[in-house]
């Protein structure tokens, strides 16, 4: 595998999770986390950013 290929491979798992998260959020209205709050584990898709249930 070339150096470029190895470099491209890094981050694919994170990108996949981000894409899954985007899809799961789908057409629901977002609720935003507050900057003064820690991210928790109970959020949408276990993302830890609060509940994104439909408004």
């Amino acid at each position, binding site marked *: 595998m070339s150096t470029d290929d190895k470099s491209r491979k890094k981050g694919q798992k994170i*990108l996949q999770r981000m894409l899954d998260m985007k899809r799961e959020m789908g057409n629901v209205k977002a609720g935003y986390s507050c900057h*003064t709050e*820690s991210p928790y584990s109970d959020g949408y898709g276990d993302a830890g950013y609060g509940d994104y249930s439909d408004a």
Partner: protein
Amino acid sequence: MRRLTLIIKPVSSNCNLRCRYCYHSEQQRMSYPHMTNEVVRELIRQTSQITSKEIYFIWHGGEPLLAGKDFYQGVISAQSCYLTNRSYRNSIQTNGTLMTDNWAEFLLENKFKIGVSLDGPSEIHDYNRIFHSGLGSFSEVIKGLSILKDKNVETGVITVISKKSLGRGKEIFNFLVENGFKRINLSPFAERDNNGFVEGSLTPKEYADFMIEVFNYWIEKDDPEIKIQNLENFFQKLIGGKALFCHSTNRCSSYLSLDSNGDVYLCGRFLGLSDFKLGNILENTLLEIMKLSVYLNIAKQVSSFAVECKECKWKKICFGGCSYYRYMNGGTLDSPYYFCSSIKTILEHMAETIKRIDSSAINL
């Protein structure tokens, strides 16, 4: 409004720590008594009149555990009384030093989400997060975190980034992950007083350099279990997703903060700034306050862009940035965001990296 978030300071700015970067003055810390049961009951009664789908109560400080368990028992009791059939959640952001088995059991039993402030390894944490005596709080925080871990409470972490953190992004990242913290909020420190920037404040370039160091390392590790709130927020926006974090919206008006005496302000960062005092819940209800012109004017201002933002290609991602840092930077809510250049640099770098991983993923 979909969700009303209330950032409540039951002991005002009172705290058992004296962090070097704390934005509360000694005078502020001693200004107000603890919130009374009357005030908190009235607050919860008034929230029942607001038609938001959800209400988030964030118990903040100062150090919110100083309010004592009886206070929070009163909170639970009032919520059970006034918020039947309403969706609400309690979370508490503590420095962790006062955590006991008893506290952990109480918070767990009452479904509080718990966040702890931890700046990284002892040398970094203990430089800024100190007791009155000047001694660092690291070992006490770790004890508190062990108690939470023993009770299987998963804890979120806020890590403040100051000058002391610079060049040590990987070290901080590794420390947090190795200690089991995989949900992390990296919060930049920058504050001004009458003499200019407070010691430890980051420059925009320093913040950008730090976040890029952490981002590169996060990508290199490529562990999808590690969630870094600020970076994921930008990541989502770069791939066409939704904002996750208040800084990337212009909806600060759905965040209100309450001081222990019932004074209401926009967001916790504005607490104590007279221009942003909206009222007092013992004189006007929250519902009345949210109809006052002072509230409506501020809500309008926080949703407007600075002139500099109008042609910016990133404006739909940062929405002009945190309104407090706009105010701090130029004295008005439509001033440019203090970390504007940082965000541009971080976004350019993140976009290039995402393109390298998969050029089709970017969706601006």
